[in-house]
């Protein structure tokens, strides 16, 4: 049980302590890496426990269940928690090795890790909102990190306002859930929402969808995303797209599939349409851009569409695809954003692994994401959906390699970029690429955990395998 509190407590206290120190000093940076490493290790240990014994639960303050705030770890939560903390760790390591440029950077990353860990491990609706804000606020500050803050500040303001609006809409949905069900405990709420009046639950569902759609950068809510990703430094872009965007995917899965399954099914058609538009819009925009980070930003919008489509297909196949795809996508984006900021020998190789993974070419991890998505498309028995998935995949192949050529093969690009980046940074990026290939070669742990998460969601949805 302490295992449930420890990762959260370590990183939270560490963040508070390091906030007082100058993060530009190397020792402080490494202390932050150590704290975050402890957090990841604790989460992995907790994950092993979950895989063995199933869901772990703890009611804080020894209150009876239903009164105190619940912390809970199940397959879905722990998978996203480990993933997000690991991405944060890689990004923090990258920035510490490259040289931290602001005194607050390490502690902000730790605060975000605390928020994300808590968010994925909470079983309480309002607590979810609190951790949600705790992880978003560092993101608003981090989005102006690095040089040329003057040029980024306008985009950061829009980022903050749009996401805050999403947060408060989510808060209104939480209030609505409490009023309808009389509880904030997620599992009790899920049971009682099933019997509640459909009209009011639908309103709650729409609020939740808007909140997480904004966070994930789905098509109609995406406009804040490209300027932020383009302006951010490589490490921050990796954090935003690899760790923070997980909130959107996790929120849609947790709330859509586990809490509001009937509403998810009712809105499935609309979600497929929004997801498809997202896929096509992201791919088309990415195809027309020349700047690596701009391509990646629009690609992120398109990839979010796949997750939504898989979620809308539903059932075990659909949820499985959504989980696998979300995990793989976040690793890909972290790798690509980090590699895009580097120059020199073997960086192209790391980038190309990420590009293969986005396009879904074996033996990269992305292959299994694409397979799962296609399985969901087959389960839906819709030719149109399969065609769309194929076209989307082909387009992603085209834009990834177009930008790869543009960034790494042109002699001017190679010459104009100046000296090669430090070897440690290239090594780190290559290591991340190796992990993605390793997942592609030995995908069983990921598939088993995602399968567990999908069983859980499909069980909650009452659907079973379709």
């Amino acid at each position: 049980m302490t295992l449930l509190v420890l990762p959260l407590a370590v990183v939270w206290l560490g963040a508070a302590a390091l906030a007082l120190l100058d993060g530009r000093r190397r020792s402080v940076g490494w202390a932050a890496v150590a704290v975050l490493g402890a957090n990841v290790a604790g989460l992995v240990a907790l994950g092993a426990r979950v895989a063995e014994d199933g869901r772990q639960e703890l009611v804080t303050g020894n209150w009876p269940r239903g009164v105190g705030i619940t912390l809970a770890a199940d397959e879905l939560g722990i998978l996203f928690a480990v993933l997000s903390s690991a991405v944060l760790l890689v990004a923090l390591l990258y920035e510490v090795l490259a040289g931290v440029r602001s005194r607050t950077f390490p502690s902000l990353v730790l605060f975000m890790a605390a928020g994300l860990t808590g968010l994925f491990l909470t079983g309480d609706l309002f607590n979810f909102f609190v951790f949600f804000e705790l992880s978003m606020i560092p993101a608003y500050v981090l989005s102006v990190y690095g040089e040329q803050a003057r040029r980024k500040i306008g985009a950061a303001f829009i980022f903050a306002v749009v996401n805050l609006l999403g947060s408060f809409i989510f808060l209104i949905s939480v209030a609505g859930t409490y009023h309808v069900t009389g509880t904030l405990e997620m599992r009790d709420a899920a049971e009682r929402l099933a019997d509640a009046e459909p009209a009011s639950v639908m309103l709650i569902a729409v609020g939740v969808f808007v909140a997480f759609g904004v966070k994930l950068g789905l098509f109609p809510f995406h406009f804040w995303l490209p300027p932020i990703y383009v302006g951010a430094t490589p490490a921050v872009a990796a954090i935003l797209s690899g760790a923070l965007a997980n909130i959107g995917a996790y929120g849609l899965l947790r709330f859509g599939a586990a809490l509001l399954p009937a509403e998810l099914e009712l809105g499935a058609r609309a979600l497929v349409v929004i997801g498809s538009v997202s896929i096509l819009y992201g791919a088309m925009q990415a195809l027309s851009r020349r700047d690596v980070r701009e391509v990646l930003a629009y690609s992120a919008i398109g990839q979010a569409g796949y997750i939504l489509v898989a979620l809308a297909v539903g059932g075990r196949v659909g949820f499985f695809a959504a989980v696998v795809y979300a995990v793989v996508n976040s690793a890909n984006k972290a790798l690509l954003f980090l590699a895009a900021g580097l120059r020199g020998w073997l960086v192209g190789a790391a980038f190309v692994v990420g590009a293969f993974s986005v396009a879904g070419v074996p033996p990269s991890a992305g292959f299994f994401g694409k397979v799962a998505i296609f399985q969901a498309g087959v389960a839906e028995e819709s030719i149109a959906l399969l065609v769309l998935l194929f076209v989307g995949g082909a387009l992603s192949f085209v834009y990834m390699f177009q930008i790869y050529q543009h960034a790494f093969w042109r002699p001017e690009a190679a010459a104009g970029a100046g000296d090669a980046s430090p070897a440690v940074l290239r090594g780190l990026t290559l290591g991340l690429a190796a992990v993605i290939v390793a997942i592609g070669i030995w995908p069983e742990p990921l598939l088993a955990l995602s399968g567990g998460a999908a069983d859980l969601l499909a069980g909650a949805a009452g659907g079973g395998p379709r």
Partner: protein
Amino acid sequence: MILLFSGVVAVLFGTGAFLMLKADLFRVVVGMVMISNAAILTLIGSGLSRGAAPIHPLPDDRLSDPLVQAMALTAIVIGFGVTALLLAIAYRVYTSHESVDLDELSREEVRRERELEREEISP
């Protein structure tokens, strides 16, 4: 009472949304504050019982729902924090661009993009 509450929430949210569509940064911040307060009022309004403050409850007292009050308090603190952050960002925009007008900022953005494109094409 609930009708009055929902009316107030609707007006607050609507006014906030209207202000957020303005180009002036500080109006956007004020709009954000109004929307956050609309959310907090919704929280209060979602309470399940009404009555006296639950400080020292006697057995036959009717009490107001303490949980929504705790949530509202937390939400107020969070709202206060993010408002401070938004104001700080808006102030930074003002000091670096000497303008708080979003239209002007985006015009500057477009101008810079054009320059970049020209540089890309010309050499």
